């Protein structure tokens, strides 16, 4: 077991939590991520593996499949992101490679992203100041790629529906956090 201590994307040893008028924004380091891209000619097999993993089917465009311990959302044609608890799946990419074998290219994405969970009844008002998405029409299980203050992000609507997961570039975690908290203060 290595002895290097992880640092949160916002620079703290602990997750940052901000609460404004009942809406909570939590930095979430407990998420392992890996991308799954179907190999040419292996699309059906790859989907089958993903469906099996998720005990259902691979996410369709604009959708996420919320499943434990692995969940997934659609990123591009025949390309998905798979997430799982970091504590049990730090080696998620290796686990997936063992399952998908030559049907997919798997790339570790865990630390490419900063993950923020926003919960509370005012999340829609906050997102209306952040991103050009129809947040009122987004339902649990919807996923969208958009831009918040010039930063590319994924926004996933979780269960319950007053829970949004926002994935942004880890290196600009501070800027994204600033944008989200500023919008929370402005909207709520």
């Amino acid at each position: 077991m290595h002895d290097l201590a992880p640092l949160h994307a916002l620079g703290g040893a602990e997750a940052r939590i901000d609460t404004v008028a009942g809406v909570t924004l939590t930095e979430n380091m407990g998420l392992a991520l890996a991308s799954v891209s179907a190999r040419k000619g292996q699309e059906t097999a790859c989907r089958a593996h993903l469906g099996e993993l998720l005990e259902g089917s691979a996410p369709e465009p604009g959708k996420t499949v919320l499943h434990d311990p692995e969940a997934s959302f659609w990123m591009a044609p025949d390309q998905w992101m798979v997430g799982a608890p970091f504590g049990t799946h730090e080696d998620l990419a290796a686990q997936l490679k063992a399952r998908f074998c030559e049907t997919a290219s798997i790339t570790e994405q865990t630390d490419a992203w900063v993950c923020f969970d926003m919960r509370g009844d005012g999340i829609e008002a906050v997102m209306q100041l952040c991103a050009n998405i129809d947040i009122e029409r987004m339902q649990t299980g919807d996923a969208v790629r958009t831009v918040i203050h010039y930063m590319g992000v994924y926004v996933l609507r979780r269960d319950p529906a007053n829970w949004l997961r926002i994935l942004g570039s880890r290196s600009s975690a501070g800027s994204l956090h600033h944008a989200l908290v500023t919008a929370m203060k402005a909207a709520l």
Partner: protein
Amino acid sequence: MSQVNRLDGGLIDRSETYSFRFDSTYHKGHKGDTLASALLANGVRLMGRSFKYHRPRGPMTAGSEEPNAIVELREGARKEPNTRATTAELYDGLRAASQNRWPSLAFDAMEINDLLSNFFAAGFYYKTFMWPAAFWEKVYEPIIRRAAGLGSLSSQDDPDDYDKGFLHCDLLIIGGGPAGLAAALTAGESGARVILCDEDFLIGGRLNFETYDVGGQSGAAWAAETVARLQTMPNVRVMPRTTVIGAFDHGIYGAVERVSDHLPVPQEGKPRQILWRITSTRAILCAGATERPIVFENNDRPGIMQASAIRAYANRWAVTPAQQVAIFTNNDDGHRTASDLVSKGVEVVSVIDTRQDALISTDYDVIAGGVIDQTWGRLGLKQIEVKMPKGGIRRIKCGALGVSGGWNPNVHLTCHQRGRPVWDEALSAFVPGGALPPGMTVAGAANGVFSTHGALNSGAETAKAALSDLGMTSKAPTLPDAEDTPVRITPFWHVKSAKRAWVDQQNDVTAKDIKLAHQENFRSVEHLKRYTTLGMATDQGKTSNVAGLAIMAEVAGKAIPEVGTTMFRPPYAPTAMGVFAGRAWGKDVRPTRLTPSHKWAEEQGAVFTESGLWLRAQWYPKAGETHWRESCDREVLQTRKSVGVCDVTSLGKIDVQGADAATFLNLVYCNGMAKIPVGKVRYGLMLREDGFVMDDGTAARLAEDHFVVTTTTANAVGVYRHMEFVRQCLCPDMDVQLISTTEAWAQFAVAGPNSRALLRKIVDPGVDLSNDAFPFMACAEVTICGGLRARLFRISFSGELAYEIAVPTRYGDALIRRLMTAGEEFDVVPYGLEALNVMRIEKGHVTANELNGTTTALNLGMGRMVSKTKDSIGSVLSERPGMNEEDALKLVGLKPVDLSNNVPAGAHLLTKGAKVTATNDQGYVTSACYSPNLGHHIALGFLKSGDSRIGEVIRLVSPLTGVDHEVEVVSAHFLDPEGERLRA
């Protein structure tokens, strides 16, 4: 006496009294007042000075179309010039000041312009300030700008915030008058997602200004009840204080919500305004109509207003601009103002109706067939002179004159995508016509339906049609009974006069100016606009355009529709620049990207520099170092002597996988990539389609079907985008998958003769780092510090024995700390971008300075890297004759002949003795530094036939920095040209 002109009734809240100041005088007003209504209540009619002639002016309107009552609001950094007093919501403690006057509003020395008006007619700028040409910028323009009527900026940063936001709906309703409310009710009850925007803080439009019943109650009460009902509907968003400023493509509308303008200071964290981008499937314009004035001599005195504005002030704000009021009208609506004033106890001294068949009243005197000939009152109206129908003049004392020339539908937003309104003869007005913005329909007065009954029904029916378009069924709401008075108007545009009669009061354009423009052959309506500036002020001619067109039609002998209209463009109403910027200013103009070692570097006191969006450590000062060069030189010397560590995470990393990954890279890079063995790295050069160099980097083969490609920091996004284009469009049949991993891995360069020794303390046992087992350009997936997965590359940008080690980003901070601790025995140093740059120049390695978009592989001395044995992007076009000339620029090293001289980047190279002319230019310096290893300045640059001029002494000239001395052309590899160090 306070509020001498306050009447009974109104929609103000008299239980709340506000104190406010205008110029140096304090006044009282009430909640619900605007600045203009409160000033009028206090007997203040004079609120501003005109733009050009500094004529005394008061409010002409009660809304956003106001051309005259333009003031500065608030003080200090929050001062906002050029704001309309008619829309400024009163609050306790408001500070407002008149503008464009000196020394005071009542006595303005610049009023001399008015006496010299004969010299300032339309076009005088173009004629008067032609000579001497040099005077324009230095003399004429500053004087004109100082004299012209605009408020002054605070010259301080705006302390408030502005937001941008995004809303979506099925139906956007623009305007909350009777049509808008009926439309919202219809759509809301049908379950559609509705947004209702109104620029007023009290929604209801003219319902709040009138006295007639709607469904057995006042129009205002019905509006308030309806708004309250709409606000209970979860599918309806009611947005007061929100002006829709533009209709853009794809059903997108811009709307500015004034969140905090009615407060002294925005609440903590709240913005002053929000610019909403509203994406709507359908939109209904219910923007109402604007009453237009009749043009006559001296029609601009304070107290002369739209008749409907006087009515609005009386009914909504319980204010009259004066105790004696006259009306000048060409239609029945003017009489409605007279009746309302009489019922409020205001003396209506006369109604002058241009029509012989004018309405007759027992409540007030009517002069049928009369016109206003002249007015008096320098700082406020005192008397009017009426030309009687049977001849003769009658003088009438009054403090206010309401003018009604008919109503113009507010068609502006229908024109934002080049729609042209059409002339309605019955209304004597332009109504929406031609191609409206897709998805937009128009209802109510904006569509020429002026009665309340008509507006209500029009709103409901238009909403039903819009919902039907959307495939939604709608329930028709039960609409209240309301007045349905027909429009009775006899067009009358202006009273002929040899003197000045004002058409556009905000830009001081007179009827004479329009005639002059025609006389000088500016016949197109667009030319008229630009020559006279008619309609070009911030009000976009809302009260002046149609009268101007009518006068032009008259002098041209045409009908009004033949003259045509000018184009309305966004924004519909004046909009603060701050709201367009939103949060994107100062530090927040763009995101900041931090490297994994940023926190640690901050603790070391590192100085940071921007590298694109990244903040990278530039150098790490030590105690006693007073100049960056001391730090940089120390870092370079210590790295070359022992070992240094640099965070290189910002370099782009692209994961390339698939059975055809090698074939793909072979196409993307101009040099061979297909046969890189697993476990090896290769330097690669990437060309654009046109044969010029796009980027360079490395490709590391981790498995037969797995590569990691690096890019320069600057081109990380561009290269990834390019590779995706190639993958998706040029090679769709290849089995290759790409994804960026730049952020996923923290990567550090460990360079210097002790780098291997240091890494041996980090990398887990079992990984053989010996030169034989892990030679230059080797790569491997390893574990470090007891099992953490890592990637190790033996590559060198510094020219030293060097490695790059990558770990998952969350462990980057811990790794740099561990490297520093473990390296203490080697006196390890962190080095920043300055030292990195010095070392790569010493080694002759190129970077963005040399890969500047204009250079080729040949220029870089890498011409032979462009493989002739395979196809690659850019290889064919790189062979164009012009790119392979004998005397092509070649990368060289440069060192000063006098070693005490520097060699600035950007300097140009000339043959010794040649004159400094562009034609003698032989090349230029791209990168320069002081080399602490060599003890003098060195540089890289491009020189014509440079590779064959080694040893030649040439002239280096930098006119910008005053440098002109001799340099010697040398090899670009100043240090270790054989590469022994990096292979050690």
